[in-house]
C-alpha cells in the first residue's frame, strides 16, 4: 500500500509546503490568520449594517463559515497545481502521483486547523455556547478533509490536460461562496429552493461546524450520514478520475 510505504515522503512534502508558504513573507503565519479576520470584519459591517441581517452571534457565524470555506477554496486551488508544479517528480522518477495531491491537501488542512485554533479564544470572547459537543468538531473536519481531497484529486488531474482550469475554477469558487451559507443566514433562502440548497455538502458542513462551535448543539444523525456519504463519493470519484488520467501525466507535463 503506497500510503504506508511512502508515509515519510508524504509527511516530508507536507512540511516542506508549509515551510515555504510561511517563510515567504515576514509576517508569514500571522498573515494567514489575519486574512480571515479582516474578511470577517468587512463582511460583518457590510452585512449587519447595510443589509441588516439579524443572526445570532453574527460575527462568529461569518468567521466559522469563512475559515471552513477557505480550506475548500485554498485547498483545491493549491492542490490543482501540485502535479504540474513539480514536473521532475512526475517525469524523472516514479512515485505514486496521488502523493503530490495528498501532501498539498494535508498542508492546507494543517493551515486550516491552525486557523480554527485561533478561533477558540474568540469563541469565548464573543460568548459562544460552549458545550461538550465541541469535541465532535475534529471528526467533522476530518470528514471535510476527505471531501476536499477527493475534489483536489479531480482538479489536479484535469489541470494537466486543461491549463485554463485555474480561471474556470476561480469562477466556480466564487459561485460556491455565494451558494453556501457563509455570509447570510440559511433562513434567507426561499422555501421552494431549500431542498436543493441543502444538497450542497459544504452547506451541511458549515452548519454542522456552527452547531458544534457556536450554538453547542449535538450532531444531527442525518447531516453526519450525508457528510460521510459525500466524502465517500468524492474519494471514489476522485481516485477513479485520477487513476484514469494519471497514465499520460508523464507525456503531458
Amino acid at each position, binding site marked *: 500500500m503506497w500510503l504506508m510505504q511512502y508515509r515519510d515522503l508524504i509527511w516530508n512534502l507536507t512540511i*516542506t509546503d508549509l515551510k515555504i508558504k510561511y517563510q515567504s513573507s515576514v509576517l508569514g503565519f500571522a498573515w494567514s490568520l489575519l486574512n480571515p479576520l479582516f474578511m470577517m470584519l468587512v463582511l460583518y459591517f457590510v452585512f449587519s449594517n447595510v443589509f441588516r441581517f439579524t443572526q445570532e452571534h453574527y460575527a462568529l457565524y461569518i468567521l466559522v463559515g469563512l475559515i471552513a470555506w477557505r480550506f475548500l477554496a485554498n485547498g483545491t486551488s493549491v492542490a490543482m497545481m501540485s502535479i504540474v508544479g513539480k514536473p521532475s517528480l512526475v517525469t*524523472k522518477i516514479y512515485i505514486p502521483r496521488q502523493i503530490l495531491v495528498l501532501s498539498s491537501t494535508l498542508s492546507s488542512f494543517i493551515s486550516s486547523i491552525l486557523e480554527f485554533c485561533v478561533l477558540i479564544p474568540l469563541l469565548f470572547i464573543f460568548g459562544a455556547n460552549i458545550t461538550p459537543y465541541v469535541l465532535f468538531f475534529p471528526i467533522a473536519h476530518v470528514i471535510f478533509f476527505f471531501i476536499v481531497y477527493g475534489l483536489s484529486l479531480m482538479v489536479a488531474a484535469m489541470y494537466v490536460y486543461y491549463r485554463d482550469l485555474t480561471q474556470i475554477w476561480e469562477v466556480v469558487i466564487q459561485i460556491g461562496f455565494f451558494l453556501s451559507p457563509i455570509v447570510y443566514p440559511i433562513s434567507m433562502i426561499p422555501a421552494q429552493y431549500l431542498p436543493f440548497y441543502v444538497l450542497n455538502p459544504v452547506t451541511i458542513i458549515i452548519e454542522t461546524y456552527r452547531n458544534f462551535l457556536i450554538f453547542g448543539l449535538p450532531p444531527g444523525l442525518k447531516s453526519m450520514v450525508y457528510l460521510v456519504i459525500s466524502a465517500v463519493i468524492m474519494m471514489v470519484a476522485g481516485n477513479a478520475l485520477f487513476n484514469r488520467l494519471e497514465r*499520460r501525466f508523464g*507525456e503531458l507535463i
Partner: protein
Amino acid sequence: MANNRYTLKKKNLDNTNAIEVDHLSKQFRIPHERKITVYQHLAGLISGGSYSYEVFNALQDISFTVEHGETFGVIGPNGSGKSTLLKILAGVLYPDSGTVHLNGKIAPFLELGVGFTPDLTAKENIYLYGAIMGLSKKEIASKYDEILDFAELKRFENMKLKNFSSGMTVRLAFSTAIQTDPDILLVDEVLAVGDESFQRKCGEKIDEIREAGKTIILVSHAMGTVQELCERCILIHGGKIIESGETEKVIERYHDILR
C-alpha cells in the same frame, strides 16, 4: 488491461533475470494543433475541425533481458527512443503494449536532484530527496553523515540550496542518490558530475556498486564509458532494436549507422 501494467516484484534471486522486457511498444500522439485548454477544445468543436494527429512510434516491439549483476548498455543516435525506454523502465511512462518485469528495488537516475527545493537547507534537501528516492527517515538519518562526507559539504549543511553552486548541488544530489542501495540502477548519462576528483570518486563508487553484484542499465553517448563498463548492449534506432549482444560488436554497428 492488467497484462500491460508495469510490475514490480520483490527481489527474487532464484529468477536469474533482473529485467525482462517483452514486446514493448510505445506510441506518442503528436497533435497537429496541441489543445491544452477547455477554451481550445470548445473552439475546436464549434469550428468543426477534427482532431488530427500523427502517430510517432517511439518504441516498437522491444524485447530483451538483463541478468542480475550485469551492466547493460543502451546506445543509439539522438531521438532513437533510449530515454523513452528508460522512462518506461522507471515507471514514469506507461507502455501501450508489452510487459516489463523488474526483480528488485529500482533506483532511476534519469536526473540527479529530483525534487531539490532551493528554499530549503542542504540538510532538509537530503531528507526530502532521500524520501523521494524511497528511503525512510531512519535510513537517511543513519547515512546522513556519510552523505555529507562524500559530497564534501559538511560545512554547508545549514545553508540554503539556492546559495549553492551548481557543482555543489550536483555533488549533494549524487551523494544522496547513491545511498539508496538499489538492486537495479538506471543511469541516463549523469556520471559526469563535478570536477575531476569528484568524477573519480563517482567512478569508484559505481565500480563498488557493480562489484556488489548490482544490475546497472546505462544509457550513454560516451562509447568509451560504455565499452569500459558494459558486458552487453543493445542498439536502438528508430524505436527498434537493430543490434544486441557483445558491447564491441554493437558499438561497431553504431558507428556504421552514424556514417
